[in-house]
């Protein structure tokens, strides 16, 4: 645990010193611009626009960080050979991987929390007060964070056995496919033979189902999110991440460094 904590803390420090959190400036400008603009063209949809824009930006910025930094977590340490001195210490390779994973998830959590504050500030500017239903935004943000953690795990897995470029492609590709995982399960092609449908259904269960984390539609319109849905999504993310990280640890523990 001590080793994992040390690697995670250093990963977080690296992100901060490499100015990753500067994206918050962009987010703040976006939110301020949106608040001013919506205030001028108010047709009773200010709240919807602000929440929708805010959540989309939180998700998009988070995905970009998760994919690009997630892939760099291992590949950068191997390319720069900073890993050599570290792995010669009493550190197991899986501890290094877990530390890297938690370090980036911590970075994303801090980043997302700061953006959430920005979103609420913009909302307050537009509405001048907050309602109970606005608390659902936090649920949506929590689910976005779970989604980002799954993406980080995938990026970490791919960077354990392929080049950074391919790892980015694979992670982004799987994210894209995962947005339609539920649709794959229910697809009904006119001329599709049963075996193709079975394969498609099988694939839909293997790829990450990112629709499990999408509650933006409901939250934008002030609807609640059932606790069971959140619990299920949490359990799904935890299991999926555990399996992906286990695979990454198995691959990485056998990998020859250059």
């Amino acid at each position, binding site marked *: 645990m001590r*080793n994992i904590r040390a690697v995670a803390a*250093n990963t977080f420090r690296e992100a901060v010193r490499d100015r990753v959190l500067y994206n918050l400036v962009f987010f703040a400008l976006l939110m301020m611009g949106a608040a001013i603009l919506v205030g001028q063209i108010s047709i009773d949809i200010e709240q919807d626009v602000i929440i929708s824009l805010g959540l989309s930006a939180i998700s998009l910025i988070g995905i970009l960080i998760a994919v690009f930094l997630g892939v760099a977590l291992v590949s950068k340490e191997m390319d720069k*050979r900073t890993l050599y001195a*570290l792995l*010669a210490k*009493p550190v197991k390779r899986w501890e290094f991987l877990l530390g890297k994973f938690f370090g980036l998830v911590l970075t994303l959590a801090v980043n997302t929390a700061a953006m959430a504050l920005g979103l609420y500030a913009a909302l307050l500017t537009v509405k001048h007060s907050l309602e109970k239903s606005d608390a659902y935004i936090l649920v949506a943000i929590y689910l976005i964070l779970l989604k980002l953690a799954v993406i980080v795990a995938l990026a970490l897995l791919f960077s354990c056995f392929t080049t950074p470029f391919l790892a980015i492609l694979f992670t982004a590709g799987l994210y894209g496919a995962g947005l339609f995982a539920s649709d794959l399960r229910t697809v009904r092609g006119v001329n599709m033979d049963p075996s193709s449908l079975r394969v498609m259904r099988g694939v839909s269960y293997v790829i990450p189902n990112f629709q499990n984390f999408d509650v933006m539609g409901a939250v934008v319109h002030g609807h609640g999110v059932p606790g069971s849905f959140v619990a299920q999504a949490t359990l799904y993310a935890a299991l999926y991440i555990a399996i992906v990280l286990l695979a990454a640890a198995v691959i990485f523990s056998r990998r020859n460094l250059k």
Partner: protein
Amino acid sequence: MPQAAIETENLSKDYSYGFLNLKTRKSLENLTMRVAEGEVFGFLGPNGAGKSTTIKLLMRLIFPTAGTARILGKTIDDVSMHASIGYLPEQPYFYDYLTAYEVLDYFARFHGLTAADRHLRIHAMLKKVGLETAQKIQLRKYSKGMLQRVGLAQAILHDPQVIVLDEPMSGLDPLGRREVRDIILDLKREGRTIMFSTHVLSDAETLCDRVGILVGGKLRGTGAPGELMDIQAQGMEIQFALTGPNENLALLAKATRAGDNYRVQVAEAELYKALEDLHAAGARIHAVAQIKPTLEEYFMHLVAADRAQASAVEVSGR
């Protein structure tokens, strides 16, 4: 015989290359060697000889194709063994967003040192490698030599029994090399086992109890630098003074002269005959010494032999 600190048995490493990785290149072949506790062992060899491969295998950064290795009696698969080992990678590169103090603090955490212990050890190490005044500067502003010193500091930070250094003198100016040499000698005096690879043969000659010479992935010789040179003794050198002309002395034809002083090399079997001739000619003998090759000459001899063998194989294979 002292207990072995590092021992390898038939350690081999093949690398795959080419399309679909179908071809293999042998980087290290059946390396069997032993470094005794408290010994300074120099690992010599030209580029691509397999020195770094061996060290990376010992550090478990790469995995052997065949063979085994043990450090302090534990197999290298045992991660706990790393608590007693210090390692300096070749051309070390550390997190450049950290300062020297921070990078040492980071590495010290893996050894379970308390915050107070870490602070004390880090200051002692920074002083030892001469980075006390630069400890708060980010490593991205460090020169290659300064990074090498940080590397050395992190390798010995946790008071390891066995220290493995991959090209520790690389990138250092003469002063830096001298300082690293002094650190290695200090560590030796403290009874630690040190294994280091180097291209600089004079460093190996000065520091090592024993050296191993690796050429083309094969260990071509191990022994004390002096022993290895004895194997290749090349005859005797006589230094003498002779005044006046002496045309009958045949030895003068192959002697080098500086004023009345001469220096001549003869085969060991001809030594006494040469001395008698010089005595008869009235020469005053100043010194008689065995001519030993330098470690460099021995090394070059092995490398040349290996290359000749490799070209012979290539020709016969055509």
